[in-house]
């Protein structure tokens, strides 16, 4: 195959990918808008439409990630553009999976669609979609296992925080939004169960990251900002899990810890890049900046 053919083929594939990704971002935006209409009007129709739009965006989004994996010939989360896309898609898919038990209650989808829209627009407007070869430090099986599990835990934490925020904000009028009062406890317990599910994944993510750093950099821990923030996230979720066993803390304080954990998770993924840039702190995780 001549170089001209390869270059025009790759340009064509990228242009298709970008158009689909923009369309997906648009659908996430529409879903967010309908979620807001649902919150304001309490109308089930708007909530259902918002929910269906999430399905309509998440399925092609997963297909798009598969296309990129095929195009690049490697796991699709090397650059921040790819990670943001993966982050948005995995959060939405996790919510769609968890929500099948709470059919008719759409409130948590608002935060999920907002995050998916934000991540997609950030990728499309601020990052380059170029497919690059895998740099030597990333050529390790730790790379895939570390990132997949860390992102899986992120998706679970997003959904947990969405449930927690919905519970805190609407627990006194949940029946107006399609969740009868007798189901409220079970719904809120889902937030706790999701953290129980995500916490070992995050623990493995940190442990595998340390094992990988030991193989690649010769040091399992460097107090790098990204490492430290992942430890902060882990610590805050450990606080949450412990507070669930203390009678005085298991109610609203535990919910606050869950939301703080979610904020720390966002800091680990994105905020730390901004913080490192702002304070001029060098980061070893340059490929994710």
């Amino acid at each position: 195959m001549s170089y001209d053919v390869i270059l025009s083929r790759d340009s064509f594939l990228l242009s298709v990918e970008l158009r689909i990704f923009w369309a997906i971002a648009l659908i996430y935006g529409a879903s967010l808008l309908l979620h807001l209409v649902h919150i304001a009007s309490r109308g089930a129709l708007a909530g259902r439409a918002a929910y269906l739009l999430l399905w309509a965006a998440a399925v092609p989004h997963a297909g798009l990630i598969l296309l990129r994996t095929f195009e690049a010939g490697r796991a699709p989360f090397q650059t921040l553009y790819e990670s943001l896309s993966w982050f948005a898609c995995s959060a939405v898919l996790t919510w769609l999976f968890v929500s099948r038990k709470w059919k008719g209650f759409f409130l948590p989808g608002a935060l999920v669609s907002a995050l998916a829209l934000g991540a997609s627009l950030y990728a499309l407007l601020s990052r380059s979609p170029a497919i690059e070869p895998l740099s030597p430090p990333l050529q390790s099986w730790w790379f895939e296992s570390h990132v997949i599990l860390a992102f899986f835990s992120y998706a679970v934490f997003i959904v947990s925080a969405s449930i927690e925020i919905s519970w805190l904000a609407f627990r006194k009028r949940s029946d107006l939004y399609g969740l009868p009062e007798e189901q409220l406890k079970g719904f809120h317990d889902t937030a706790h169960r999701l953290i129980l599910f995500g916490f070992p994944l995050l623990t493995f993510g940190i442990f595998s990251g340390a094992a990988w750093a030991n193989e690649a950099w010769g040091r399992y821990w460097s107090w790098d900002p990204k490492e430290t923030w992942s430890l902060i996230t882990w610590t805050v979720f450990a606080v949450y899990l412990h507070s669930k066993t203390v009678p005085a803390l298991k109610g609203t304080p535990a919910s606050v810890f869950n939301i703080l954990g979610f904020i720390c998770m966002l800091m680990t993924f994105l905020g730390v890049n901004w913080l490192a840039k702002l304070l001029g702190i060098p980061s070893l995780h340059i490929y994710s900046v």
Partner: protein
Amino acid sequence: MKTRTDIKNIEWLSSLRKALAWSYRKLSSIETSVWLLSLLAISFMVGTIFPQGGDFDEYVKEGGRFVLLVEAFDLLAFFSSPLFLAIALLFVLNLVICTCERYKALFAKRRFPESFAPTKSFLVTQDAIRAHDETRRILNDSLGFRLVDKDSAWIVMEKGLPYRWLTWAYHAGLVVCLIGVLFTFLFAFEDTITLKTGSPQTVIPTTTGRVQYIWQNGSPQTDYHLLLDSFTTEYEESHELDYPDDRKARLAMGLGWKMPEHKMSVDPLFATDWKAKLKIIGGSSTLAEKEIEINEPLKYGGYTFYLMGFEQRLKLRVNDSFMPLDAKADDDVIIPGSMIALSLGTLRTGKAKRLDGTIDELTPYVTVKDSASKDEPAILKLNDSIIVDGNIVTLIGFTEQAILSYRYDPGVTILWIGGIIALVALFLRLYGSYYLLAYKVDDADAIVTVNFNITSKGLLASPEHIENRIEELLTAGDLKPLALPEQT
């Protein structure tokens, strides 16, 4: 008769004992864990706000706003400061005491309430003794429950993974991890060494661990040599994406008004791997050898040798000069007799995988450009020349050196053992399933009911499933159960 001093001593000892007991009680509580973990999280945050390893004078010179705090709490080396170490020590004490308390609890006789609130009840058609026997048989033989306690009216049984042991095991695993971290803190040290092909070198660390520093004031020289046998680099050719920085132009691309374009740059090679064939030589024999690369270190004699990068030096001949000009790749060089500083790129040598899938052996080359110019660089191949400001510059040779870092860290093995224990126990504890079931047969006014109380641990546990199975099996056992409305 006790003197006043004796009484004072006894009072003092009693107060001390009370204070210690109070401290122990506090440190063995989960509530303390919550506060200490919170404090730890805040202290980690502090460490990411202030650049760790930064110089205090530099901080002051750059107009740092928190000079007093930085100085008082050693915020530029916060993770080894007394304040952080004190918080960490309290947390470790809390973890160790909680783990010990849990260990003691594992062997203590378990106490259950006198009475349980039934979560499921069945009205059955048989007499109480038959109902009791049948329920016990079903729970024991068909569902695999083990008897735990039968002292009260309620019979207590359990099934599944031993969650109390698992909870203890992941806490113990974390304690082992922290011991590993302590070993690293006390004994680990690292240094770098640069190896030239064919020139053996002895490993002489210039640094040492905190403990070794106290007893020997330095690390010993190793009794073996390191030899770099060969150094190779592999490349992949990749295209460059012409992608706009402007957000409106990016949106236009998404709308299909503009196409993204790929192009080939002057130097389209991307280093995908570099490998160093390393030998450990002792006397006249080879003790170990390995082709190391990033993510593939060599371990020998307690040290781990990592390939960190490489350094290339170029030999340039300017005009007909006999003395070649020694220049470092990826750096600027002043050409004698010229005002121009030449900016040199990385020397490319080795194998390259082309965009069309073919692989070729490269003729070594380096990119060169006038450092002040914004023009595209030119390619200077081995034994070829370019003209710089009227001077003929020829690339006549090059050398490559591997930069290795090596590290001695006895904490790693301990950390891995602790980590594996903690992870396995955590996954089993949180994902696995455990049931505690209490049942009681009631026989009031000839109406026989079997009451169950089922609680569970672990994400895979489903008390509803157990309740349904019990109902199915009671039916099959001819007890003709009638489920009563939930009483919780």
